[in-house]
Each structure stands twice: as C-alpha cells, then as structure tokens.
C-alpha cells in the first residue's frame, strides 16, 4: 500500500490539473479560464495536448508520465452565459517504479471524466480598445472514465485509472482585463472532490494568473482590419490540495502546495489560436513524500465557428 500511495497521489494530481487546465477556449491563458465573451450562438472548439513528467530521486525511482488530449467545446447561450464540455483522453498514463521484484511498469489509457461547466459574465466594463470583466464559473465532473482497469499485477491504483468514479463539483471566479497591447487574467477556483468506494481525492484550491503581451504587430498604428497577433505568455498557477481521504482517515503522504510558472507563445488570428507553454515548477511543498514535477508541456489550438 505504501508503495502505491505516491503514484496514486501523483496520478490524481495529474488528472485534476489536466481537467482544471483545459477549460479555456477564448483568446485567453493557456492553463486556465478567461472572462472574455462568447457570442450568443457562437461555438468554440479547443484541443490541447498535454505531456507531463514527474519523478523522484528516492530508492523507488518513481516516474509518472501522462500523454493526454483535452477536447473542449463551448457554446454561447447568451452573450453573458457560456457553457462548456471538457473531454480528456489519455493516450497513456504510465507509472514506472522500482520494487523488490524489480522495475515494473503499469499503465492505462482511454477517456477520462467529463466535465461540464457554465460561466456567467456578472460584470463588464467596456472601453475603446479594452475591456474588464468578472465571471463566476460553476461546474461538475462526471465519473465517465474507467475506475477499475486492471493489468497483469491486478487492479491499477485508483488515481492511475482514467476516471475516479466520483462526482466532483467546482466553482470560482475569473476576471480579465484586456487591452490591444496586453491581457491580464486571474482565476480563483475551488474543487470539491467526491467520494467513491471509500476514497476521495483531496479538495483543491487554485489561484491562477496570466499575462499575455502582444509582441507582433509591434504597433497597431496604421494596421487595418483584424491582423493576427502573437502574444508572449507568462502564467502562474498556485495549487493547494487537501490530503486524500482514505476510508475514515486521511493519507498523510498526500496533498500540499505547488507553484508553477509557464512561459509560452500564442498565435491569435480571426478564427484560430495556436499556442504552447511549458509549465515549470518553482516551488513545491507536499505533505510527506511526493513526486515532483519535471515539466508539463501544453500545445494546442482553438477554433471559433
């Protein structure tokens, strides 16, 4: 049990981060949401490839690799209310660990837990060439992924499964200030994870910020129409997770706080956005022993129609 707790926790965090980070579909941060509008009747489609590596330097020499695709479809119900569906697909979730039996590899793949959420623009103030908006976000994650996959060694650790078997709820608020030259977004989000079969992931609180600065065109003077923009991105994600609940107690080696920084680039045209970031850990303070992030690569596109 002890040997499986770390990868279990790591996989849970991977899944939670993946879901929490694929919400964005407007011209916006790459790792979280935005308050920018979706027009009534407008669809937004996003695909984001996520490659994440975690490891430790302990005697178990654990490595966790995730290759996943987050698919998002958004729709503007009204100019203020937009709804989104998020479907994660795991090409591979893999754990490599050294055991008394030698080095073993356990992996799985498939569709994960689907999330549905709504975002309502509570406040907006538009100026010529800029806007400020505040929008609450509320949603649910359904247990649609497989939560009892097995391999030759038996049932996979719970978090290595593509689903966790529980309904989760989340809510928060996102704010955006956008000008022609730059955009700043901030998000505070709380996720309450449900319990299934005696286990619940620790609830999660995250605070995300993003700066997108237009580096091309250098100036908008004399540039007619809707030219494509290139933004330089710098995003920050501070994530705190409570300890996982296990039967009637908690797992001492779970939960903690993590701070990630993500530089990146974003190409924004009239109907397409192509983007990429690399999230790097700045500080991690986990309870007990834990895996550390090496990096998280996110590349993808968004399409408006």
């Amino acid at each position, binding site marked *: 049990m002890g040997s499986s707790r770390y990868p279990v926790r790591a996989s849970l965090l991977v899944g939670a981060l993946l879901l929490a980070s694929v919400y964005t579909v*407007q*011209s916006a941060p790459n790792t979280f949401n935005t308050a*920018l*509008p*979706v*027009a*009534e*009747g*407008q669809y937004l489609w996003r695909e984001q490839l996520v490659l994440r590596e975690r490891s430790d330097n302990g005697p178990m020499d654990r490595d966790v690799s995730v290759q996943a695709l987050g698919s998002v479809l958004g729709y*503007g119900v*009204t*100019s*203020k209310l937009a709804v989104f569906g998020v479907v994660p697909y795991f090409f591979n979730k893999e754990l490599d660990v050294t055991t008394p039996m030698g080095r073993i590899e356990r992996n799985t793949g498939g569709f994960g837990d689907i999330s549905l959420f709504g975002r309502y*623009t509570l406040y*907006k103030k*538009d*100026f*010529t*060439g*800029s*806007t400020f908006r505040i929008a609450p976000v509320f949603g649910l994650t359904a247990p649609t992924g497989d939560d009892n996959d097995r391999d030759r060694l038996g049932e996979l650790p719970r978090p290595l499964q593509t689903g966790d078997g529980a309904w989760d709820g989340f809510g928060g608020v996102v704010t955006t200030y*956008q*000008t*022609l030259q730059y*955009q700043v977004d901030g998000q505070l989000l709380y996720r309450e994870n449900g319990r299934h079969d005696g286990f619940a992931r620790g609830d999660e609180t995250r605070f995300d910020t993003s700066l997108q600065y237009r580096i091309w065109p250098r100036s*908008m*003077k004399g*540039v*007619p*129409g*809707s*030219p*494509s*923009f290139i933004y330089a991105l710098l995003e920050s994600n501070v994530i705190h997770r409570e300890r996982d609940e296990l039967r009637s107690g908690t797992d001492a080696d779970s939960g903690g706080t993590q701070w990630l920084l993500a530089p990146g680039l974003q190409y*924004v*045209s*009239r*109907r*397409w*956005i192509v983007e990429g970031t690399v999230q790097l850990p700045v500080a991690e303070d986990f309870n007990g022993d834990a895996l550390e992030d090496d990096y998280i690569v996110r590349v993808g596109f*968004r399409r*408006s129609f």
Partner: protein
Amino acid sequence: MIRKLTLLLAALITSITVLAADNQYVLGVDGLACPFCGYGIEKRLNKVDGVTDVQVDVGESVVHVTMQEGKVLTEDRARQAVDEAGFTLRSYSVAEGRTGGGNGQ
C-alpha cells in the same frame, strides 16, 4: 474594339449600380481588443437580414457593415447584434458613397 468598349461600359454600369445599391455603416464598438474576439461580432451581424459584408477593424475599434440595396441597419438592430456578441456599441453612423465587398462569412 466595339466588343471591348461594350465590356467596359457594362463594367462601368455595374460599378455604378453597386455604388448606388450598397450602403455601409460604421459601428464604433467598445470592448474589442483582439482579432479572435471580433469574430463573435461578425457572426452576430451576419445574421442581420440584408448584411452582405462585415469587416472588423480591431485597431480602430470599429466595424464596417455593408447592406444590400434597400436594406437598412437601424441603430437599435446594430446595438442588439453587438450586445449579443458581448460588446458595447459606442457609435453608429452611415458611411455614404462607399461600397462593400463579398460576404463576410
């Protein structure tokens, strides 16, 4: 030679017809600050009956709308379309004597 002159005359008449037929409006839109966001305005305005072309100018925060002959874009209808896109109509004016191009979609 006569054939060329005839073609030239026909092209001239067609141009004059277009000039006379199309009418263009200039909408000042607040809140517009990136090209991707502007597509929502195009989408809503293209749903207005008679709109043949929508051109968003992000840098100037204006939208040029071209209507078919005989069709009118009222200020109320323009405001509604801009609101539906999630933005704010700042100004509304008719650009006399200008012509539009093809369909913005």
